């Protein structure tokens, strides 16, 4: 939904390159003060407007209005017109309709929104969409090749490693990432890999067995 409540800024420019490190807004978003951060950013900008100070040299300032953002998601390129404060989770779910990733805690403690940035699992609720620029984003929908099933997904079904299923996409992404980096995991490794994934139905034992089974299958 590209519509924005805020007027576009004249300083808008496309975010086409990866922005290394933690951005100011990334920090503000990460600090969990979404509404306050908006007010703060606006405040800073109106202060700049009043005092005539510009952004420091070499720093591109985006927003607060929508800017075009190029995202590479599940082997497809997308250009989204979104506010720079938009999290990757929001961009995926609302803009791209990829609702497999779930927003549960919206503060990086439950991993329900886990996606991969270049095969590294991240909490998409704690990642700004602009920080995913230049990376390959893989979501649960794109984990397996088109029409296929990833071995971890198949093992989750075989082992009944789900109940309500709301944590399942995040669990699968964490476990599949583990196998990318460690083809011979122990149960301890699996527990570590999903230590940030919260499941309220209490399906953990089968998550462990399913992942170990999938690992064995991949090796076979």
């Amino acid at each position, binding site marked *: *939904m590209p*519509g*924005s*409540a805020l*007027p576009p800024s004249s300083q808008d420019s496309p975010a086409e390159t990866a922005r290394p490190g933690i951005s100011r807004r990334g920090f503000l978003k990460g600090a969990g003060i*979404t*509404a306050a951060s*908006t007010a703060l950013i606006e405040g800073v900008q109106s202060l700049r407007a009043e005092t005539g100070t510009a952004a420091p040299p070499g720093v591109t300032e985006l927003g607060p209005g929508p800017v075009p953002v190029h995202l590479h998601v599940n082997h497809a390129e997308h250009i989204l017109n979104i*506010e720079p404060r938009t999290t990757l989770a*929001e961009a995926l*779910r*609302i803009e791209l309709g*990829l*609702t*497999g990733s*779930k*927003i*549960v*805690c*919206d*503060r990086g*403690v*439950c991993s*329900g929104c886990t996606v991969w940035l270049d095969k590294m699992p991240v909490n998409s609720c704690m990642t700004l969409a602009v920080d995913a620029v230049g990376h390959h984003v893989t*979501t*649960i*929908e794109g984990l*397996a090749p088109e029409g296929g*099933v990833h071995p971890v*997904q*198949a093992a*989750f*079904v*075989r082992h*009944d490693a*789900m*109940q*309500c*299923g*709301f944590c*399942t*996409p995040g669990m*699968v992404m964490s476990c599949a990432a583990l196998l990318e980096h460690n083809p011979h995991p122990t149960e301890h490794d699996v*527990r*570590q890999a*999903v*230590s*940030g*994934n*919260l*499941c*309220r*139905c*209490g*399906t*953990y*034992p*089968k*998550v*462990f067995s399913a992942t170990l089974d999938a690992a064995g299958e991949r090796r076979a």
Partner: protein
Amino acid sequence: MSNRPIEDALLAQAGATVQKMAEMPVGVPGYTLHEERRKMPVTEPPVWPINKDLQYVGHTAPRYDGPEKASGRARYTSDVQLPGMLYAKFVNATVPHAKVLSVDTSAAEKYPGVRGVHVVQHVLGPAELRDPALDQGRYPVVRFAGQPIAAVAAITPAAAEEAAALVKVRYEKLAFVVDLDKAREPGAPPVFPGPADAEGSAGGGGGPTDVHQTGNIHGPSIHRVNDTAQGFKDADVVVEGHYVTQVQTHSALETHGVVADWKPGMLTVWASTQGTASVREELAGFFDLPMSQVRVITEFMGGGFGAKFGAGNPGVVAAALSKTTGAPVRLMLDRQEEHLSVGNRPSSDQNLRIGAKKDGTLTAIHLVSYGTAGCGTGAGCAGPATNLYQYASLHTEENDVFINAGPASAMRAPGHPQGDFALEQTIDELAVKLNMEPIDLRDRIDNHPVRRVERQIVRESALWKSRNPVAGADKGPVKRGVGLAQSVWYRFVRMNSSAEVRVHRDGSLEVLSAVQDIGSGIKTVLAQILAEQFGVPPSQIAVKVGDTNYPVGPDSGGSVTTLSLTPAVRDAAWQAAQKFLAEVAPALGTSPQDLVLADGEVRSRSGKMQPIGFRRAAAKMTTSQISAQARRVPDYDPSKYLTYGGVDVAEVEVDTELGRVHVRRVLSVHDCGRPMNPEQTISQINGGIIQGISYTLFEDRLLDPNYGLMVNPDLDLYKIAGAREIPQIDVRLVEAYIGQSSTDASGIGEAAGVVSIGAAVGNAVYNAVGVRVRRTPMTPAVVLAALRQGGTLA
């Protein structure tokens, strides 16, 4: 078996009671299996044998919607996006107790992107005053921080959130109380100006509505059996204890919420609910709409645990906003709102005294409990004391204490984890005092035939045999202990349980019911039932549930779904199969009575015809679709087998220096009538154990007494057990046939570990350290305090 199933079905539905008698398997195979005669309507299908003699039911079938869930394709309410959909956000009270003087929405209304603002006129959830006139004022009185006051709908979530922040609420603050003990004191700030009551939901909970209220104390609700004064006189020994349990929040991963689409002539609502029927009923009632003009859809839902019944505040506010804006409105709570405003498990403060003879026979049980359900009721916890054991006398007094906090709602086995924590530790203490083995004592005081088998299984287990009967015997700072506890739950049959089964001419089969699958796997079970009846694999069955356009289904609370709905589904499947055979028999050159369905074929009993594939036979139908609908038939003998449960054993390690309790292993022995799908049942029991451990060791809703606010309304400071805290869990399912329905299933959600694991951990901790921890959560501070008090720690 009747040859006239259709006519008989019509007769039965017309109220006629044509009955037949049949022998049914009853008891536990390998232990107590026998046959009992049951009277049942003549329309009932033939009695099923025990699971080992069935092909699909009672065996593990992969979860019906597993591939959708594992692939992210499963669409939950929070994933629903409709064209033109608005995002709504609540404005919530920031103070725990106040009169609202004014709500100024003008700035919010003017905010870019805002399409509608709604001011809440009636808050659903809190107890209602018996005399509503006592609450004067234009707006509902705020009784807890987080109470919804208004809501804003806008074209983006951000615009809704920002506009909601612009709504100005003026309060006249009132004195508040958020502490159970302070709320009980004379002169405590009253949460309500007069008596107030909250009834339970379809999932249970709620409190009595006919009790006295003194200040904030709503009760006592007294229950007596014989004379406990005499019972204690007759006792050789008396044990007593003071037990305290905390408030737990449900913390389902998908928050409460709906997407409401109000169109002329039809209100369609996608709801994250445990009861599509309950949501429809509440919306129809609230807006004075005919039930036929409200449709509720719940294809997938992300956890409820008892808190998700009815439309609630999100449902009615989203519907109202959709009506005024003419657009679909999505209103999903955020995590903080989920903790604050939509339910919790009440706390408890229990004084329990038990008298017994030297042989263990219980002469008296006396329980006085207080607990807070916030500004609701439902803190009663006498269920286990009342229903788990045989006793000569009983006296229970249950009190709800109002505080300025969000109202409780039913939570997985309402009242039972609390009550069991006290009861089963007290029984354990009695065993110590009588110098009896815990299982021997329970054999003496519990004659439930299935529990007896379950205790036998525990007695023979390696885990129980590894228990050192001497408490605190381990050397060193980390001590190991093993303890057990029993659970009890009840058989509730919901008659609003119907289903339709269709056979299509292409051989495809489908079952339709409004029932929702809340993660317990009812979709899979329905497929298995049709598979069993038609002799085809479950993978060939289409299951359509979670939509009130289908025949009404039970609200999923209190472990009712499987036991209520599956007999209706089997009856519908059987009737559809009979109709199908009657339909194709002429083309096959034989009579319907000569035909059977098995292994994907239609076969002749007499050999009149060669077996023919089911699909080929279906092609001979003269109509494109045959269907049968059935509703739940009452239990065959409602006087029998009213409870079920299990025995849970925990092995713990207690670090006596750090106060940390770690649960290493759990053995969980449970019954649920005929297990329909063992793997899914085990999943639920795993979940009950894990939720119960989380409750016992970690979870705690913390309220700041100075400001009346919850200080941990998130998922980091509200600590829930995670992957590293999960023990090895060994589940033993006990098939326990009871001869009650055409499927003979029971439920498992409540009894599954969550009731008894806390007490089992408590008893294991005692076994480890020789000191009883009578308070949850058993945090290091609580454990160290108990050790200090018990003299084990300097």
